[in-house]
């Protein structure tokens, strides 16, 4: 029994979500191998070999993997799948894109967003926006899983010394071409990896006010910025800041929600945070029912005061 973890990486380094996925793979029992499919990704493959608990790294290098196109990455995974009992992806945008393609090619069901490994074939996962937790058993020989990173501690990035095996890369698909990307560059931590997140809601009123009020707090705390769906729908914050059922699932040490009422879809994305602080004018806001510390106040007064007090 051996598990294969599909690494999330940018060809130069391994992304944090990979480390949590390796922990989940170790809980499935047996050895853990990591696949790095990239373009000039030797450095990333070498970094994967350093991760504690990894027995072997498979490195496939080709232009077609440069941007992680699902068609190409899935084909590479399928090419080596026969050797593995479990194939695990982090439940990130790229993991979710590729994993079902692999499962269908192998004619097996996929279990999405696992939060716990009960045994080699039985897993727990949230359904209905986290309002219920299902324990499910795979009846297939190969288990294809995506791993909710907040459910597992990260494996140590160093301490391992796995061998790197170079694979023959599969050919690139002619059906799909990468045209370009717009990735916001900033010095803040990634939302899903941040220790502190400050999140704003519709009460901010405009994108200018969102930035004016929330950015100083994030700067002061070295925090990532998040937003409720209402704030994103209103155009106050970029799409990829959305925390919730259909956005990012986060579990930082500290989550500060300002002007967020707390719809169940939002709570689904942040209720596993260690400490939740809610700042809201409305004493009846549902967010207070999950907050460790609630402050009933106008955020336009309270947030700047908080910045000054820190």
């Amino acid at each position, binding site marked *: 029994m051996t598990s294969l973890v599909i690494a999330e990486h940018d060809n130069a380094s391994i992304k944090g979500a990979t480390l949590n996925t390796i922990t989940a793979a170790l809980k499935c029992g047996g050895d853990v191998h990591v696949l790095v499919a990239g373009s000039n990704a030797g450095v990333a493959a070498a970094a994967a070999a350093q991760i504690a608990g990894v027995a072997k790294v498979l490195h496939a290098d080709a232009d077609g993997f440069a941007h992680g196109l699902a068609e190409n990455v899935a084909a590479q995974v399928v090419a080596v799948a026969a050797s593995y009992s479990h194939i695990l992806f982090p439940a990130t945008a790229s993991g979710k894109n590729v994993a079902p393609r692999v499962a269908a090619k192998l004619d097996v069901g996929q279990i999405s967003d696992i939060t716990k490994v009960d045994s080699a074939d039985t897993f727990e996962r949230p*359904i209905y926006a986290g309002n219920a937790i299902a324990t499910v*058993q795979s009846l297939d020989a190969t288990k294809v899983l995506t791993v909710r990173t907040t459910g597992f501690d990260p494996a140590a990035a160093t301490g391992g010394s796995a061998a790197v095996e170079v694979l023959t890369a599969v050919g690139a698909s002619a*059906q799909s*071409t990468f045209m370009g990307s717009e990735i*916001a560059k900033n010095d803040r931590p990634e939302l899903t990896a941040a220790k502190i997140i400050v999140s704003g809601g519709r009460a901010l009123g405009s994108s200018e006010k969102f930035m004016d009020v929330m950015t100083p707090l994030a700067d002061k705390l070295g925090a990532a910025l998040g937003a409720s769906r209402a704030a994103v729908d209103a155009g106050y914050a970029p799409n990829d800041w959305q925390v919730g059922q259909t956005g990012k699932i986060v579990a930082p040490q500290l989550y500060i929600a300002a002007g967020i009422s707390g719809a169940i879809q939002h709570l689904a994305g942040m209720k596993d945070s260690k400490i939740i*602080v809610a700042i809201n004018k409305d004493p009846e806001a549902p967010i207070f029912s999950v907050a*460790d*510390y609630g402050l009933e106040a106008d955020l336009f007064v309270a947030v700047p*005061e908080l910045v000054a*007090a820190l």
Partner: protein
Amino acid sequence: MKVLVSVKRVVDYNVKVRVKSDGSGVDIANVKMSMNPFDEIAIEEAVRLKEKGVVTEVIAVSCGVTQCQETLRTAMAIGADRAILVETAVELQPLAVAKLLKALIDKEQPGLIILGKQAIDDDCNQTGQMLAALADLPQGTFASKVEIVDGKANITREVDGGSETVSLTLPAVITTDLRLNEPRYVTLPNIMKAKKKPLETFTPEALGVDVSPRIKTLKVVEPPKRSAGIKVPDVATLVAKLKTEAKVI
């Protein structure tokens, strides 16, 4: 060019489901059912492509129980031209639905297939990608913009940290993200018109698809409750608590 859109009947977005006391699942008897919100976006996108003259026919498909007919009538009220129900009482998992849709692609030969990125009941986020794999088609998942240019689909996709654009040969599979469009309200005249549009029914057996589940649900429980903490009177108390009690800053 035809476009095929799949729609799922799910517990309405605003309903807070309750777990059954015997742990066998969630109680969906007598709760409001609606079209999965991401599928509404999928139908809307298909209808807009037809209004732009890019596609000629919009076919809505649903797989499941008899009542999925209502979901299909809604899809036709938004603007789908006709509908197909694959009727079964078996609990359908994403792989099974992908296989049913693959069988319908073989029959209908659409140039585009649009699906919601995930259903808000099982939160799987699998069917579109599985369908693309089974049909050997390219995929543009989590789409926030769809453009059909020179026989290709240029899809802007929401990814971690921003967006990216891929160009796909047709036919292609697209799954919708939240902000691809804002679905129109259905009007009464369109609801009346939808009642007269054709709705065809197949069974999985007739399509030659084995839909038996691959994943067994052993139990369903409530998540651990997070209890409310305390209200603090002012910012100074909050900062003090975060520093000395919670020790997170």
